[in-house]
């Protein structure tokens, strides 16, 4: 994107090296928001569209459509400074996507939006993802990443912590945990050789099993000794994985 020069190596997309035409394929939303405050909404959108090689008339059509879609259609001719912060963010979001880029780079796209607008933006992003666009989303909110992203690249202190698809990461870092709700005395399972760790609470327990043990086998071995009312496999959240990995390092 021309912002940071690669220290080494080459960047290519779909086998093709990145060149000047790549500019028009990319949509970028930086974390710090701000537009030309004294300029009109439509002028700002059209300026960025022209820089992406869009024709003015088509850009105008699209701009009006998106402004309406994000329910800020009435501000077409207002100055940026007259808009609320949330609405300014919407305008900036439009500048990032107007030229229908095939790659979107979004840095904390939801910050500054209220829950309704966050949902609106999420819906649009999911639409884009389904339609085959590449979306790179950078965020501190692990739950957002978990819900929206297919592939994850966790970074701590500028270094890679782990990467891969969500299910891979969960498999890799999530330990083999189950939750049991029961009646009776469960303490006997501490003597099981494949039980790594047990936390027994008043009416439920969390049990960590060895990696190669199937939870169903474990269930079979306890089912005739106590009365199990609930049994589930606990999936670790991305948040927990992140914290665990950082702690380990």
């Amino acid at each position, binding site marked *: 994107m021309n912002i940071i020069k690669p220290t080494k190596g080459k960047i290519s997309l779909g086998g093709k090296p990145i060149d000047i035409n790549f500019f028009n394929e990319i949509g*970028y939303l930086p974390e710090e928001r701000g537009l030309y405050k004294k300029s009109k909404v439509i002028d700002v959108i059209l300026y960025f569209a022209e*820089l992406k090689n869009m024709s003015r008339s088509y850009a105008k059509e699209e701009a009006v459509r998106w402004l309406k879609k994000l329910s800020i259609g009435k501000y077409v001719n207002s100055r940026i400074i007259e808009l609320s912060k949330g609405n300014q963010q919407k305008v900036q979001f439009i500048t990032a996507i107007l030229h229908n880029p095939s790659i979107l780079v979004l840095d904390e796209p939801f910050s500054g939006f209220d829950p309704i607008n966050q949902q609106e933006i999420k819906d649009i992003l999911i639409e884009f993802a389904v339609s085959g666009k590449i979306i790179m989303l950078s965020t501190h909110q692990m739950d957002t990443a978990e819900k929206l992203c297919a592939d994850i690249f966790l970074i701590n202190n500028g270094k890679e912590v782990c990467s891969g698809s969500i299910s891979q990461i969960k498999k890799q870092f999530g330990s083999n945990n189950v939750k049991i709700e029961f009646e009776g005395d469960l303490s006997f399972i501490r003597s099981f050789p494949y039980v790594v760790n047990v936390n027994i609470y008043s009416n439920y327990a969390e049990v960590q099993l060895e990696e190669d043990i199937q939870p169903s086998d474990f269930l079979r071995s306890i089912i005739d000794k106590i009365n199990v009312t609930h049994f589930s496999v606990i999936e670790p959240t991305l948040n927990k994985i992140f914290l665990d990995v950082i702690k380990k390092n």
Partner: protein
Amino acid sequence: MNFKKTFAVAKWEYLEKVKTKTFLISLILTPTIIIGLTIAPTIFSNKSETTTKAIGIVDTSNTFPQTLINELGNIKLKNGQPRFIPINLFRKNISLTKLKHSADKLVIDNRIEGYLLFLNAGTDSLKVEYRSSNTGNIREINLLQRTVNKVRIIQKLKKAGVNSGIIKIVLTNVKFTSIKIEKSGEESGSNIMMIALTSFIFIILLMFMILSSGGMLVRSLVEEKSNKLIEILISSCSPDELLTGKIFGLSSLGLTQILIWLLIGISIAASTNTIPHNAFTNLIPILVYFILGFIFYTAIFVGIGSIVNSEQEAQQITSYLSVILIIPIALIVPVMENPNSLFVQILSYIPFTLPSIMILRLNIISLTITEIIITLIIMILSIVVTIKLASRIFKIGILSYGKRPSLKEIIEWIK
């Protein structure tokens, strides 16, 4: 280079800035200030005196008063009234100190405008003091000085027995005008004040424009940097396209400004006849130097704008540049007196001072074509080099935040 994008940047910079209040204000304010600085004092001081003033004469030798009273009395105001009422303040048997004391009191009490005190009168080491509460009226003082000298000459000549007809001839000034010979063989009457004035106006205009639009450029760069808009821009077009677009947009803005001012200026000149039309004979070369100078400084401002992080920092650097811009104004008189001195020659080859100094010299002397071509080449080369350097600094500078880079780092970037 994608010219469509460069054009889009230029158009944006131009249109967005033309619409700002700052532009409108500088469009109106700059000529107002310049007129205030240059034409107004001339108008005020040209306004002839309308009141008769009492002038005292203290001469203990009593050789001058009679003739002086006659001569001063002959000077008339526009309305026909005498300009001065000369009063002989000499009293016999009163010491000079006492005479001086009472005359001073008359001045302080506003009974007389001032008085002429003759010292060592009757000898060759005559000294005259004009003592007044207002010694700022240079025209009036000059007039008094001329009259006193005239009177002294008349008296000396009369003493030597020269007849009054010859005295009259001696006292008449020869009619003297200066004519500048142009290369084409044409001659043009030149009014030194008007030359100074037009050059002064152009140099001040150049300075104002560079500072105001340079300021605008730096402000917009700082804004784009602070809200990371620059990252969006730079991921949409190359730094060169962005830089060229910005310089073009800003230069067109500057040209619009000059064009409007020129139209106003020419129409004022034509309608009032205050400025002789030959003040504009060198208009085209002047404009060329003007525009080149403007682009040169704009490129410098781009470099500055890309290394600073706040407007305060920018102002700091800008103030150094303004000093360089002011140098030629301080040099107007020496350059006019000696437009071919080595010092002036050197200044006309340094790109920072070249445009202003050449604008000045163009109006005073006929420069050789070689000189003009060499300076133009220097200017164009400097612009090319500056833009190259600025773009190197720009490419790295616009994306580095925080501490202002040291000179060493900047040199590193340029490499």
